């Protein structure tokens, strides 16, 4: 199964990347973790996101579209980075996340969300080969 592993933002990550010695050390630890993921064959994709101050939101209400400039409040609900993994089940994903170095200088959170797969769309009329990935 595929999971998206979301690194949640913190006040620190919302300030943007600063090349401090601590940040360099943290990046090295994360690089090692990424190597482990790669060598285990589960890493499909990964990237970091710039702070929400550089982002925009578009809200929908009927035919209306409104653009809102960042930064956005509720910092801890924002996403600072992500991985896409191919794992056997959620237990395996949790076990991998537990061995990830803390992605932030302070307390932080990582969220794991399974992706919809072919088998979840069986009702679709032209869904060729359902149940057959």
């Amino acid at each position, binding site marked *: 199964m595929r999971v998206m592993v979301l690194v949640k933002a913190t006040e620190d990550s919302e300030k943007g990347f600063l090349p401090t010695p601590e940040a360099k050390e943290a990046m090295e630890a994360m690089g090692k973790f990424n190597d482990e993921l790669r060598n285990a*064959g589960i890493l499909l994709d990964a990237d970091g996101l710039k702070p929400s101050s550089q982002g925009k939101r578009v809200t929908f209400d009927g035919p209306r579209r409104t653009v809102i400039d960042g930064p956005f409040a509720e910092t801890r609900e924002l996403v600072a980075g992500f991985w896409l993994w191919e794992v056997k089940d959620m237990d395996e994903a949790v076990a991998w996340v537990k061995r990830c170095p803390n992605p932030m200088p302070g307390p932080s959170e990582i969220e794991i969300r399974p992706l919809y797969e072919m088998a979840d769309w069986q009702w679709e009329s032209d869904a060729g080969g359902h149940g*057959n990935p």
Partner: protein
Amino acid sequence: MTAGETHQAIEAIFRIERARLISGLARLVRNVDLAEELVQDALVIALSEWSRTGVPANPGAWLMTVAKRRAIDAIRRDKMRERKHEEIARELDGECDRTAEGNEMAMNDDLGDELLGLIFTACHPILSADARAALTLRVIGGLTTDEIARAFLSSEVTIAQRIVRAKRTIGKAGLSFEVPRGAERAVRLSSVLEVIYLIFNEGYAATAGDDLVRPGLCLEAQRLGRMLAGLMAEDAEVFGLLALMEIQASRLPARIGPDGALLTLTEQNRARWDRLLIRRGLDALARAEALGGDGPYVLQAALAACHARARSPADTDWPRIAALYDRLRAVMPSPVVDLNRAVAHSMAFGPEAGLRLVDEIADAAALRNYAPLSAARGDFLFRAGRLAEARAEFEAAAKLTRNAREAAFLLARADACG
């Protein structure tokens, strides 16, 4: 956490660590069977200890330390103690003096090399291709014997025996579990790649009614391919095979029609192709080409990439495909490659070019009474306006194929010749 949840969490950690634990131990004790047993014992101990104490900070190193201690015990209990065994035991004593932290560091240093060594050993050419596939899925993929049997449409007894025999053969041959070097490496690597592609194709051949373990083989092979690409970052064919598998797997969601029949590339709804896998495949191919790759897997991946890049069948770069088949023919000569080459040339340069090439190979023994050859020839003749000859070829092809749907399709084409 409930006891059940703890148990599940430990099992998940174990699944992650299993292959590298086995590879580290196999190199020490020179015995896959014993290594597997030691790792299993370590899991049993972990299950009882960790339920009380919680999971340690470095679970992999903890498991390795326990398993190595058990290895010494096992060797000491062994009545047929030879000098060689004592040497191993002394070596092990040294290893065990290290703390769990030391083991962690040693594991990280050796990790890639040991794992690679086990992959090369499980895929050693002294074993049959089937035995290599079964053993690789067992010790590297962590599949159970039952899962492997279901995946290969075989019985559990057959697979179990195949694995036991493979392990015995490895033991008798005294293989060292090292990564081969020099000239031997290239030969051994092609044996590894062959096994991974065999596993992939077995999964690719699965159909809608099959046990889900079968299509799962594609994922397993892709995972092995990605592992290998991580561990052998300088080998073009490794990236070629990975690219080929990622691109082929990208079509899995699109290749089966509503009636359960396989669809050709032209018939597939390309919107269903998995863009992430295509991008990964193209990246791997770019890496292979940057490494100067020109081997069979790189070329096959380049061919697959031509189709992956085309938004619709009409956008296909046929001249490039024809040129790639010219090169593939040189490194991987086969009548089927020749036939595909003729088709590619007909698409790129017209039906006469296809006819010329197909007539050159029509006498090959492997292609005599081969339905796809007659079907291709029929198609070239049809497009050249030679309808009577085309009809005869399509009818001949319909008689040769054993697939009812294909026969109906070919007869319809014969009818269309007027």
